[in-house]
């Protein structure tokens, strides 16, 4: 996958509330599929389907050994997604902080612009 496809897969994976809840659960430690089924009160096939999407996005991985095959969270793609939004955020924060200053200047009576 290209970095852009990776990011896309990450966002699609994160777009679903059940998958976000699974990730939140995994942040406190790895879990088997059965352990994940319990708190979410949805079927094991449904959980497995969500896990496949998360796995394809590289957000989680499943151990090959042990019959339990525990699922654990993978930090790197999550970080990339967060960084990307962080950069986007900076663009707007910096532009808007200049807009704050401009609006302040425009609201001092002497500088009021003509209305359109």
């Amino acid at each position: 996958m290209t970095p852009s496809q990776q990011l896309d897969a990450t966002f699609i994976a994160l777009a679903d509330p059940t998958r976000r809840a699974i990730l939140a659960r995994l942040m406190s430690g790895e879990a088997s599929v059965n352990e994940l089924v319990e708190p979410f009160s949805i079927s094991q096939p449904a959980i497995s389907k969500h896990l496949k999407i998360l796995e394809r996005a590289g957000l989680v991985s499943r151990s090959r050994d042990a019959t339990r095959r525990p699922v654990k969270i993978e930090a790197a793609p999550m970080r990339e997604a967060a960084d990307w939004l962080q950069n986007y955020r900076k663009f707007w924060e910096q532009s808007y902080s200049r807009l704050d200053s401009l609006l302040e200047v425009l609201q001092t009576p002497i500088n009021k612009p003509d209305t359109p």
Partner: protein
Amino acid sequence: MPEPLIITTPGDREIVVVRSFDAPRDLVFLCYSKPELLRRWYGLPDWTMTVCEIDFRVGGKWRFVSRAPDGFEMGASGVYTEIESPARIVHREIYDQDWTGGETLVTLTLTEKNGRTTATTTVLYATPEARAGAAASPMATGMEIGFKRLDELLASKPAA
């Protein structure tokens, strides 16, 4: 302290940016629609807006060109598709180098409460892939350059 900015990614093609301002919305609307005001705040830090043309009417075209400190130029243009003063502006947008994987549709809505204005910007990308592709744009990567006040930029002549 600047106001907190809220960014969300609802659905698979949108980015939504919400921010409020300590000003009536007529004034915020002017800052979005008059080039002499828009160029004083919008854009990348350390970049100079060399072209800011706005034909502010439905069907009217706009064009911005920004120049990086190293001379690299980035242009974007589009058409206004809806204007409802002072509440709403919708425009289409495409970068010359097409960083965004096709045109985006940008909707700005302004609401006013107790003299404060909330601006909500929704950027709709052509595809989910295009939204992710915005990560490769200078808009995203050029951010680490130190913040510089726009008035300083305007005072300094851009390199030829």
